[in-house]
């Protein structure tokens, strides 16, 4: 008893979730790659937030429409007027990059957030109740897995009507099975824990058990998946835009910008690299953005994944 009494004198501590979080953050920022990833994302975040200051829109009511001087189809290289050059029809690349950042965040976060919500609900239903519910949800997920995502996405975007909103919508429709699977497998483990049994035995309802006992204990993997998936989502969205399923020319979206430059990837015979800036700048921006999210996702996995996490 004296041992137990000695223990009690400790102060009550913070919520273990919070303690773990603080520990994780410490771990997180010891890794140089994390710092690089976080800096990249921070950089883009600043671009997105201060877009109206960095690139004042000539028409504030429609800032995503890139301004252009003239209709000259030949792109112009970086100059004092257009720091990063222009697209065909003289759209300013710098303006497109800055305002495109907002779109990139919107696509990535909206798709991932929606997938998370759908995945959590379906995964919880499938994992907790099992049986026929599980069977139906997971077999539908299997069907989604069986169809190549890009092909399915193209077909659906064409069916809905092209545009950025359609791309986001389609990615939401196609993305949930991964999340559902992950959350389901976690819940299958937690569901059989004694404290869930104990909660059931003390008369706690199903909904309450899922919300208060199962969810908080099984969200870790899904957070990792979500953070890794932001970059992937941007890539797929860019690919769909590049294929011409995205916005119209002149809309500040990285994928659409690359798409507009399809005809200028290779320059005239005398100078093959004449239009390097066209593909390189938006392409590099996309790559950098995705890299940032992947580094961040990797870091989050290193810290949160119990198999990677070492004390």
């Amino acid at each position, binding site marked *: 008893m004296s*041992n*137990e*009494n000695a*223990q*009690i004198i*400790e102060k*009550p*501590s913070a*919520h*273990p*979730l919070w303690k773990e979080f603080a520990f994780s953050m410490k771990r997180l920022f010891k890794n140089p790659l994390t710092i690089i990833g976080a800096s990249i994302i921070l950089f883009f975040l600043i671009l997105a937030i201060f877009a109206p200051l960095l690139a004042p829109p000539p028409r504030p009511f429609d800032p995503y429409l890139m301004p252009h001087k003239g209709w000259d189809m030949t792109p112009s290289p970086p100059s004092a007027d257009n720091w990063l050059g222009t697209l065909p029809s003289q759209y300013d690349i710098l303006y497109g990059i800055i305002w495109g950042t907002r779109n990139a965040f919107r696509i990535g976060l909206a798709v991932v957030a929606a997938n998370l919500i759908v995945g959590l609900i379906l995964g919880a239903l499938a994992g907790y109740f*099992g*049986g026929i519910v599980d069977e139906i949800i997971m077999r539908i997920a299997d069907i989604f897995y069986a169809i190549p995502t890009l092909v399915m996405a193209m077909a659906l975007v064409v069916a809905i009507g092209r545009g950025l909103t359609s791309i986001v919508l389609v990615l939401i429709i196609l993305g949930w099975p991964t999340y559902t699977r992950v959350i389901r497998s976690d819940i299958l483990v937690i569901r059989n*824990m*004694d*404290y869930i*049994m*104990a*909660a*059931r*035995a*003390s*008369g*706690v*309802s*199903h909904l*309450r058990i899922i919300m*208060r*006992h199962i969810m*908080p*204990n099984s969200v870790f993997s899904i957070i990792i998946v979500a953070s890794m998936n932001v970059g992937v989502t941007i890539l797929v969205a860019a690919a769909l835009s590049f294929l011409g399923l995205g916005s119209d020319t002149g809309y500040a979206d990285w994928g659409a910008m690359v798409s507009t430059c399809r005809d200028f990837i290779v320059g005239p015979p005398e100078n093959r690299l004449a239009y390097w800036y066209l593909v390189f700048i938006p392409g590099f921006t996309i790559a950098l953005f995705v890299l940032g999210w992947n580094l961040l996702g990797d870091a989050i996995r290193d810290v949160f994944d119990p198999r990677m996490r070492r004390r």
Partner: protein
Amino acid sequence: MSGETILEVRDLRVSFSLRGRRLTALRGASLDLRRGETLAVVGESGSGKSVLAKTFLGMLDRNGRVDSGSIFFDGKDLAGYSKERDWLAIRGKRIAMIFQDPMTALNPLKTVGEQIREAAALHRGLDRAASRAVVLETLDRVGIPDPELRYRQYPHEFSGGMRQRAVIAAAVACRPEILICDEPTTALDVTVQAQILDLIKSLQRELGMTVLFITHDLGVVASVAQRVAVMYSGQVIEEGTVREVFYDPRAPYTWALLASLPQLGVKGEELYSIRGTPPSLFKEVVGDAFAPRNPRALEVDFRFEPPVFPVSDTHWARTWLLDPRAPRIEAPETVRRLRARLARGTDGPETAGGGGAATGGGDSVQGGAE
């Protein structure tokens, strides 16, 4: 002993479907639980002890179902309950359960106090402050010092014994009529075990609860229970007071169980062990389930299932040996010694009529056996 039956289980059959096969976990188990008593259910792994307890709360796994039989509790047949809502009125509120491993029986992400409060608030319809007061009182009652502080702590800040106390507090916070303890001390070390057993005993006395104690540790039985039910292969094969079952066992399986206790063995002799394994629960059992392992089995044991034979008002067993036509079969040495001890009346517990006193007397079975 008040004697009034609070829970009456009759011919309960429970089966599970496992990949197209039927596993029969309970083959017509019958049991009486009397108000205010502690009944210990003993049996080896797979004898159906835990399944029996889970049916009382409607917590069989999804693939399990009650095939037939009844569980009468407060005039209602729980065996017929199928709706979750019906069970929610029973679980925790009227019948509560304590699980084996206190290390995993608490949600690691919620404070201990909040976890206990959850059930208390739910069942008693109390507001936050009132239910908090109930929890603090309960924590104090189960012997957790400084409840105010402990309320705000997380399970990882509790030692094993303290966690089991917290688990018990969660179970008794709603003042259930029946408390089911599913091997509550198995995961604890011996000194803590004794404390927890004492706690359960005193709580039972103070709160007037009926306790169903599931265990495979006969020493624990002797120290907490007034009556014992011995289970084998999905049936209760003998039920009686601790004194009757431990000192005058009638079923061959109970004989074998007692004979294999190291405490009752004779120094220098090889310890008796029951040969063979329990019958497969996938197959239909013909005759007495224990017959194939019983060196004293009769011809009839292999053909017909033995009915219940009363031994006394409080003692019955399922064995053909009690049939008037049965030949006289000598009980094993250990059991004969126990009977002789009972006849001398030198030790052994008082009959279970003494309520709390009986539990005190129960300790001497352990003591006397050594």
